[in-house]
């Protein structure tokens, strides 16, 4: 089974589809609105709003969420069945409450998503959103995660034991670094 197939369903979305075979998450320029190969502009706008509501962070601009849409676009380009899934899913969201999804209030958007949260479409978008958003260096920065440490020689001299709001641990339990 190919990696991108194996999290297609339900909760398996966690191991999801966003990471390409190379494992390297595409990193578009921070402010650029990506160009899409397969998604139509309305579909892209809808998926942007859906990605935002699934993992909403007020401190984030649209750029990290556009990267999610880019990943969805790449998946749609690679696999026509994904393209159809996304097209049909956007249509389903637009059918909620008689308005276009992007015209709904935040509260209504959440209700619309809630109504389809068990569908393969939702699971696909959530899975790609999860993997793309929380692998984005800009999101790392916003959520104060420093990530990779190898290039600086690890956290040994960069705060691995800098917590000062609790008493020190005796050396018998926690020796000093060699």
């Amino acid at each position: 089974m190919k990696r991108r197939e194996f999290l297609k369903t339900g909760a398996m979305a966690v191991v999801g589809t966003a990471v390409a075979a190379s494992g390297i998450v595409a990193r578009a320029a921070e402010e650029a609105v990506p160009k899409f190969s397969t998604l139509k502009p309305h579909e892209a706008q809808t998926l942007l709003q859906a990605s935002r509501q699934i993992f909403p962070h007020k401190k984030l601009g649209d750029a990290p969420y556009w990267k999610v849409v880019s990943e969805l676009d790449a998946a749609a380009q690679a696999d026509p069945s994904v393209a159809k899934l996304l097209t049909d899913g956007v249509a389903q969201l637009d059918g909620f409450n008689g308005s276009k999804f992007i015209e709904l209030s935040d509260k209504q958007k959440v209700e619309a998503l809630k109504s389809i949260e068990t569908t393969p479409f939702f699971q696909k978008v959530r899975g790609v959103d999860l993997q793309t958003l929380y692998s984005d260096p800009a999101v790392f920065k916003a959520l104060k995660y420093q990530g990779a440490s190898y290039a600086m020689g690890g956290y040994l001299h960069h705060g691995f034991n800098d917590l000062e709001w609790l008493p020190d641990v005796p050396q018998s339990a926690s020796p000093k670094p060699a």
Partner: protein
Amino acid sequence: MAEHELSDDSVIVVIGSGAGGGTLANELCQKGFKVVLLEAGQHQSSTTFHNEEWFAFNQLAWLDKRTTSGNWRVAKDFPNLPAWICKTVGGTTTHWAGASLRLQEHEFKAKTHYSGIDGANLMDWPLTLSDLEPYYAKAETKMGVTRTNDIPGLPGNNNFKVMYNGATRVGYKTVHTGRMAINSQPRDGRSACWQLGFCFQGCKSGAKWSTLYTEIPKAEATGKLDLRPESMVMQIQHDTNGKATGVLYADKDGQHLLQKARVVCVAGNSIETPRLLLNSSSSTFPNGLANSSGQVGKNYMRHTTGSVFGVFKKPVHFYRGTVMAGIIQDEAILDTKRGFTGGFEMETISLGLPFTAAFLDPGAWGANYTNLLEQYPNMAAMWIVGEDMPQEKNAVTLHPTEKDKLGLPIPNVHYDDHANDLAMRTYAFKKGAAVYQAVGATRTIEVPPYPSTHNLGTCRQSEKPGDGVCNKWGQTHDIKNLFISDGSQFTTSAAENPTLTIVTLAIRQADYIAEQGGKQNI
């Protein structure tokens, strides 16, 4: 590196290059045996490892499709990923966190000590702690386990500082930075720990013991090892006398090759090992190899696990430094007054932001969840690892219809939590939360089990051939030159992380194979 002929029936074939197979291969090479080491995964190195969780997952994890059944939460959250183990040279020793604890004396006698538990297929191991002690000592020396051999403990990180203060405030006594197969000082040609924070992603500093860059290169240096990565074993073959004669495997191009063997040792982890035995059925052995007991694949254990996260008012940055930075051992005792039998360890754990988002509440979305994730820098966490009950119905079986790309039935992993497991997890969640509340946690979170890293028991050791698959040496009861060399051998799971015991059993098994080989018994 040696290249042994496919037709050379004097070689020992070892299947799998992780803690069991990688260690066994080296031990046998050091004794002068010719070894063919077949590994399904690719050959990575500290250079190709990356400090990125999803990248490393895709690079190292065993992603071939598996199915699940049973009432365990993993079947709901990760229906096609029952186990988080590795398909790569070095196996899951590339991913493990390094905790190296000996099993306790009473844990080898679970049936004797834990009597009267309905539905538990308990059995005493056919060996005792004293049988293993000399080999535990060899394993600890080999792996450079801290707090043994006068090797100092590792320095604790922020995550451990939170655990230590909380633990001592609630009255726990045995709390320290653990016995870890991670160098606290340069040793065996490898550096001291850099506190990278990416133990699970392949250690880029090489401070953590892994067969990838310890046992395997040492075996290669003898000129006796023929390591063949990207070689997926399909079948173990036998002759009319019921003796193993070789293994059929597919190389990276899908070409089928037959390697002859004098002895075959299986160390594919507790899902692939029984799968291979079952997939090797023949007219002589219609139920699979070494399965006259009917126990191949049965009694699958995965430890009673779960995590407790604490959220604090001030930063912790728990991702900095070793993942298992410290341990509380007070609950790993024999005391049935707690409402369950068996014990559990409490060990710090940390996840990067990508995996925290994925695992903190699998499937969750929306503002409540993202508000919690925004507390990420202020989190501390611990993993609970406790003894789970062997149950015959918990089993690795062959899927009735689904096949892999080689045409072999894929494995299904069935697991129902035992009432004892549930009682232990509930108790452990409360105790873990109390530790964090004692140092001011504003919130504690009970995190459900991750896919299993401790897969055990599916080819268990037993005194009598009718009760299990192999004897106290890992030699199968049915086939004298066929050995089980991984955690599948475990008769019961005990509370401790299993790697040290797997390595210990492999060292001991190598001595036995040499002795029996010398007597021409195998």
